[in-house]
């Protein structure tokens, strides 16, 4: 059984996506959650490029990927900044400890 290049990319997308989702659902450290989010978004970017390649609309796919990268960077930076503030305030990055909105 041999993998084509396309199959390998799909596999990579699925792996990255799966790891991202798994980490998002199980990790309790805020920094790890942000990293998980990054993994998730990277898999989506890869998928967008792949879709562009398959449909022959590379220009559109690339511009969308670039947009996602920019938005994703902002999300990451803001997330990190919030994490720093939370750490300063509560001396913890554990989501269980900082759940202030709990009923």
């Amino acid at each position, binding site marked *: 059984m041999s993998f084509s290049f396309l199959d390998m990319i799909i596999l990579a997308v699925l792996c990255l996506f799966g790891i991202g*989702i798994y980490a*998002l*659902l*199980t990790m309790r450290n805020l920094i790890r959650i942000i990293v998980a989010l990054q993994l998730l978004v990277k898999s989506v970017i890869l998928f967008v490029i792949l879709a562009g390649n398959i449909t022959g609309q590379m220009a559109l796919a690339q511009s969308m990927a670039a947009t996602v990268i920019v938005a994703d960077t902002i999300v990451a930076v803001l997330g990190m900044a919030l994490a720093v503030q939370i750490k300063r305030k509560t001396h913890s990055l554990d*989501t269980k400890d900082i*759940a*202030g*909105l*709990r*009923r």
Partner: protein
Amino acid sequence: MKNAQSILILFVILFPWLGAIIIVAFRQNKEKGQHWLASAISLLTALAAWLLLFFNNTLIISIPLGGIFGNIEFVSDGLAILLVIIATSIGSLAILFSTSYMKGESQLSRYYSLILLFIGSMTGLVLSSNIFYLFVFWEMTAFCSYALISFYNDDPKAVRGGMKAFIITQLGGIGLLIGIMMIYADINTLSIPEILQSAATLPTLTLQIAGFGFLVAAAAKSAQVPLHTWLPDAMEAPTPISALIHAATMVNAGVYLLVRFYPTFKAVPGWNMTIIIIACLTSLLAAIMASVAFDLKRVLAYSTISQLGYMVYAIGVGGLFSSQFHLLSHAIFKTLLFLSAGAIIHSLGTRDMRLMGGLNKKMPFIRNVFIIGSLSLSGIPFLSGFWSKESVLEHGLEHGPLWAYTIMLITAGLTAYYTIRCVWMVFFGESRSHMQPHKISSMMKTTLTPLALGSLTTWLLAGPLSKFLQSSMPFHHFHTYSFWEPFLSVLTNPYTYLTLAVIVVAIFGFFRVKKMKGLIHEVRGIIGFAEKGLGFDELNKVFVTPTLWLAEGLRYTQTGILNWNIFGILLGLLFLISAVLLGGI
């Protein structure tokens, strides 16, 4: 010229919202600054609304957004402008009154920003020419109403009243949404003029579902039986709020909705008759409950429900102009009554009429304006309430069933009865407690004076108003009158004198009943039942209790833990994707 008009239209919606943000931003300021800022913003908005009268063409502003929700459209026709002027003018009077009434209260920025948010939403609601955005504004007014009823949020009664109002008006919102979706599914447009135009092409079933959906919406918003119980409980709000939202503006939104879509639904079998039945029940039962209530604000609330019944009745019998005429005069005299009741409550510190009495000499100014409002409410010639109520009754007799007219006639008598009872208990007789009223501030007097003058004179506008409405609304049929015509037609109608006779009998009846202790003892059970709201509260609990129970249950899902929230988001995403896929297949 057109630009100036469009700027004014957008101004009356967006400027109050901007003001709401400004007030929140400057919440650290001194109390006086808050009062003046809110007053200035509301007065400017009212000025802009009045300026709209100078443009005699109907302008449609369209802001293209694309997508299925259509363009944001505003139309400045007669009906919209009438309600914009009422909302902004009474809004600014209520805010001016609040500068004195709310003196020394905490969290004034929340109070004023919510009122301004409400004024903007109300003007948006009536100006909107796209039914989806009308729905959005509709819900925004419901939210403002909820937040302002629960303004004193450390008082459990106020919080409960707010939630009840929110849940019951939401029920109406669902009816409205179902109606909108039914119409959209058939004619693929959300624009109100297009809906009015293509009403004839709609299938009967769509029209029926949409028509009754809109009727539920109107009944919930305008407090019609059996969805009226939120309005008396909404009286926990500060009194200027009761005057603005729960007497003069938001409760009229239901009447507005029915008038706006009247050409679409008038041919639906049973629609008109349902409206007439609801309206008759509402005005009669509310008048009975007002006759036995002891809380001054609750009496006025029941009276509002009863008078809204008159407006809805007028729509049911096809008297669109009469309903708008009564809406105008009711907005003014009921605001006057509420604000003067506010002045009394503010100076005595109680709402219980059993503790009042003998205020005649102590508060002469308030007595005078309250009596003007009361006379207008009871339909005594020649105040504005007299002309508008007679106009409704006259139209009802000509075009509606006789039994409905008889019920409304009896209600007119009951109205006079509870009004004289209220005036008597508050101002006359022996003083029943040792409370010493404070002095009424000059600002309160300043706001009450124009309202009193309005109650005396707005009837003069009947002729011009009818022409204004008819000329700007191509799909509606409003009866047009010359200047003197409405008055001559009322005065020459023999049934006017029948109504007056009923009113006089009711007033004399009040003085007789006071002496008939035996009779009161006999009907004690009925009176007690009426004091408890005739059992409608139990009926409304069917909606309110499960909603609150569900909300309490759902609070357990609010763990505050990030992973669970992400899980929820993913589930939602999965649901949406599968819905799209299934729909696509």
